[in-house]
């Protein structure tokens, strides 16, 4: 009995928990609510309900083109990031070599460097080599800032993996490539896919780095949204945000099915 009471939450703890939950959820709920407001400007207490701001999205060409650009950018950058991070993760997890810790720190460094610093570094670099406004260049730099997520998820699925199946395949004469393709990859695929989805989300959400290198032709959705939120009070921002929240919830559901959301969010294997 005493063991149970010691491990249970009292009323004060539950009240605290309710307040924290409300604090976390409130701004998202408010955005969703206001997106149905029939007022001409963003304001919280409102009377009538309308879907007008959802129809207005179709007239907001900056947000629409930004959305498609962000989707294409996220798909390309997450795929490129996985293509470079998965083999690097295998190298780090499976081999002991000189500079292994340094390689790991180098590949994880985009997480530590402020995105503003990355943004100006890329802006300066692009203006020197003449890549300003290039979609391909945007894919490359997005791949760099999101590959730590793919690296981390892949590492967590490779480390702790039993090598019995691989050794068996090797001893039966399978080549190293066949072992990777037919034995190792299927085993780590959930982690690789979770890393891809996480990388896609990070690319799709990035505003701070992208705002420096975005040109009128390469304005992503978050940058277009930032420009509207920062400079005008316009209810279309709330309907677009609601669509983004719903999209995130759908992706979270997918992630939960593939690897378990706790593993993605908490990063434990």
């Amino acid at each position, binding site marked *: 009995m005493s063991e149970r009471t010691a491990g249970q939450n009292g009323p004060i703890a539950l009240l605290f928990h309710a307040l924290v939950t409300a604090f976390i959820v409130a701004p998202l709920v408010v955005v969703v609510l206001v997106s149905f407001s029939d007022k001409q400007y963003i304001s919280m207490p409102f009377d009538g309900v309308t879907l007008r701001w959802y129809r207005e999205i179709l007239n907001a060409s900056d947000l629409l083109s930004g959305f498609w650009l962000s989707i294409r950018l996220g798909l390309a950058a997450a795929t490129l990031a996985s293509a470079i991070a998965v083999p690097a993760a295998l190298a780090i997890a499976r081999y002991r070599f000189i500079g292994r810790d340094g390689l790991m720190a180098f590949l994880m460094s985009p997480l530590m460097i402020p995105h503003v610093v990355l943004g100006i570094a890329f802006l300066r670099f692009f203006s020197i080599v003449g890549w300003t406004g290039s979609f391909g260049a945007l894919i490359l730099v997005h791949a760099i800032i999101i590959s730590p997520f793919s690296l981390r998820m892949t590492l967590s699925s490779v480390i702790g993996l039993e090598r019995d199946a691989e050794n068996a395949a090797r001893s039966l004469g399978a080549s190293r490539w066949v072992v990777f393709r037919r034995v190792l990859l299927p085993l780590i695929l959930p982690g690789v896919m979770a890393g891809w989805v996480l990388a896609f989300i990070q690319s799709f959400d990035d505003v701070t780095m992208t705002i*420096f290198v975005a040109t009128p032709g390469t304005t992503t959705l978050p940058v277009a949204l930032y420009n509207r939120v920062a400079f005008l009070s316009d209810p279309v921002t709330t309907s677009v945000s609601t669509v983004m929240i719903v999209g995130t919830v759908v992706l979270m559901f997918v992630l939960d099915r593939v690897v378990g959301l706790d593993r993605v969010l908490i990063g434990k294997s």
Partner: protein
Amino acid sequence: MSDAVNDQRGRAPLFLSLPAILLFTGLLAIPLVLTLTLSFHVFDGMKGIQPALTFNHYLKVFTDGYYYELFLRTAGMSLCVTAICVLIGVPETLIMSRMRPAWRGTFFVVILGPLLVSVVVRTLGWEILFGRRGPINDALVSLHLVDGPLRLMFSMTGIVIVLVHVLLPFMIIAVWGAVQKLDKRIAYAARSLGASPEKVFFRITLPQLMPGLLSGAIVVFTLSASAFATPAIIGGRRVKVVTTAIYDEFLHSMNWPLGATIAVLLLIGIVCIVVGSNRFVERRFKQVFS
């Protein structure tokens, strides 16, 4: 991967990581080095960036009170956000750890899920809540807690509140790692020997959570100091922090060398804090827990 590589295990890791190394060197290391050199170039208001080199931008940042205050304000803001995240995050994580698994899973999604929602969207939500006639001021005024509406938009208080919202999940994730390793039997032993719940918390539980708490604090502090969208939207033109000042130098004043100088100092500051505190945590806790 050909069979030739198999036999030379020494080359395999290089082969596997080469694409990543090439991309990171060409498009991360080189641009960062170029930013460092940019900060030493002479800037002319009419002619732009000059090839001549100077140390003046650093002198200006170190001697001009405006920049000095900018860094102090950013550090103060980050400390404040970190302290609040510790005060909310540690008890909240402990409360969640005591829940039944089904509830715990639900609340993990609710509390950590917003991490995956764009910061612009979350900041927009706070912008609506912070309005002069918004829900927060409505509630405060009708409960007679304040005389007039508080000004949360374009204020440091507002920025701190939103950053706590944005960064609290990182603190909970870090502390959760430590809670998982918590040996509950020690707490029970202390309780059965007559220690009060407060004493158990401060003498038994909290010290065990320290490594997680400190690593969470490092993450929250550095992400606060690097945050851009939130201070830019909530602070507007009134409250400047380091990141928004860099943005102004680059995209409004067009003084890239000065902007690069501030950016280099921000990066150095953050690297020092991360490396320094990691060293401290390792030294301090290796003896205690190994």
